[in-house]
């Protein structure tokens, strides 16, 4: 009681420093908290996104920059190399994503099986490739895939397959990109699936077993439907990731041979930072955004709205 009175008295008199209103109050704190993120967002997200839109309508750089309207986009539509890049990206996407997701699902089922010994160790190992930096793994794979002395051709030699010129022929270069991508991301995807599998209630399986459902029946009637949101999510993430594919062709093939592994992002990089044609590169970037957004919309339709 006495304490309250002294406190009130102190406030009335203008207060000792102890009772002065603090600088950070419940009213102003949200603005202070959000300020750093807002600054970063405005400078390095919002402004560049809008600036790129403007740059895509210009040609030249710096003082020599001039507005050309939609010229860059017209050029893009008529650029056979852009279509080659789009075709290559789609091809790699259509082949690699299903293979990887299927392998990842099988791997996750294996890792989740209670019969398996040393599960922790296997999980640890399959996760490791996803930790490798792209340059490191590009270097590794360029040597592993080397024609005359690579690890892969050496292994294939045991099953009687002649040395393959992985990075030197258009067909095999694409396969090499698919192999490298699969090696890199399958374990990561499997660990995502594994987390999904482990969150499925055991009771569902027990009930199904009581009802006499076999393993395959249980897989299709319980596992797949329960995993559906995660399956869709990985389809979308892998698709968007592959549409932006850059690092693997950049470090392994440089887009060659004969532009057979040229991807949209690589073409963007070449135009922007090898030919310094910023206007055209920005137009490619926005075309890529449209493509990615298109897939995003399809996903939204498939999953039936926002989560």
């Amino acid at each position: 009681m006495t304490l309250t009175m002294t406190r009130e008295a102190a406030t009335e008199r203008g207060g000792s420093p102890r009772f002065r209103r603090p600088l950070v109050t419940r009213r102003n704190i949200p603005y202070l908290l959000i300020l750093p993120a807002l600054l970063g967002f405005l400078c390095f997200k919002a402004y560049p996104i809008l600036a790129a839109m403007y740059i895509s309508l210009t040609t030249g750089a710096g003082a020599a920059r001039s507005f050309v309207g939609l010229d860059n986009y017209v050029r893009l539509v008529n650029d056979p190399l852009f279509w080659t890049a789009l075709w290559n990206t789609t091809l790699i996407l259509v082949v690699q994503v299903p293979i990887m997701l299927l392998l990842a699902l099988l791997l996750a089922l294996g890792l989740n099986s209670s019969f398996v010994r040393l599960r922790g160790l296997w999980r640890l190992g399959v996760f490791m490739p996803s930790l490798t930096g792209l340059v490191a793994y590009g270097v590794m794979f360029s040597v592993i895939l080397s024609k005359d002395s690579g690890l892969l051709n050496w292994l294939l030699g045991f099953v009687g397959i002649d040395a393959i010129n992985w990075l030197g022929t258009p067909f095999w270069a694409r396969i090499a990109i698919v192999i490298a991508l699969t090696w890199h991301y399958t374990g990561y995807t499997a660990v995502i699936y594994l987390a999904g599998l482990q969150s499925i209630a055991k009771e569902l399986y027990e009930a199904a077993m009581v009802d006499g459902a076999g393993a395959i029946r249980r897989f299709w009637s319980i596992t797949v439907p329960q995993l559906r949101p995660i399956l869709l999510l990985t389809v979308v993430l892998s698709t968007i990731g592959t549409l932006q594919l850059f690092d693997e062709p950049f470090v392994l093939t440089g887009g060659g041979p004969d532009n057979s592994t040229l991807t949209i992002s690589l073409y963007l990089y070449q135009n922007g930072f090898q030919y310094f044609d910023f206007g055209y590169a920005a137009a490619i970037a926005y075309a890529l955004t449209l493509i990615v957004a298109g897939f995003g919309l399809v996903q939204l339709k498939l999953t039936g709205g926002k989560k």
Partner: protein
Amino acid sequence: MKGWPLTFALAAVFALCVGPFYWLAMAATHGNSEIFAETPKFYPGDQLGANTAKLEESIGLVNVLGNTLFVAVVQTLIAIVVALLAGYAFAKFEFRGRNAFFVLLLSTLVIPGGVTIIPIFEMMNDLGLIDTFPALILPNLTVPFGIFLMRQSLLAVPDELLDAARVDGAGELRVLWRVVVPVMRPVLAALGVFLFLGAWNDFLWPLIAMRTPEMFTLPVALATLQAQARTDFGQVMVGTAISSLPMMILFLILQKQFISGLLAGATKG
């Protein structure tokens, strides 16, 4: 007995995943001609010291490692703080423009990195920051996914916990430091590991933003070295091993944080 075939199958997959790392470690200890010999080397050689010395000479290994570590640590620490503060605001306070900003922030997640890279490059160029550490660090401090992760995790923290501290007379900063930070520690660690991994391995932006070899990060220095004709691959292998090793060790120690950090990126999206 039933599990053995499956165990063997998983062991084979394990070998495919880990084998290249083992081979890399072995290659780092051999000379150029042995790496490109017809039979791969699965045993250690005696060239590790020589390869490392050559690498130091050609890229300035110690300096480049220092650059990489500095950038990754500073960037990660600041980005975590920015994400925590913003996530806290989004989760626990009402303020003007909250929903609009949140939606805008999330919508940038679908925009490819290629879009922003040219304007950011021009901006850094105009500011004279190209070839400096701020050019590398500044654009990566606001991480929308990190803010989202923080917000989602903080939504699960009951308001009563914060209010109890306030009733006890704690000011807002004290609530943040004494209540929010401690309960968020595991999520902060997961995000930290995730961001550090990204920063350590980042390649494209450092490649564009850095000019002089003294300012390179390890991935850029390695890629440049590899691209040179007639490069001695022994040193490239050492560099590659050095760039992968810290992550492997960190992963073995912080397995849980790694997996939850990477999973958060996927399952909360």
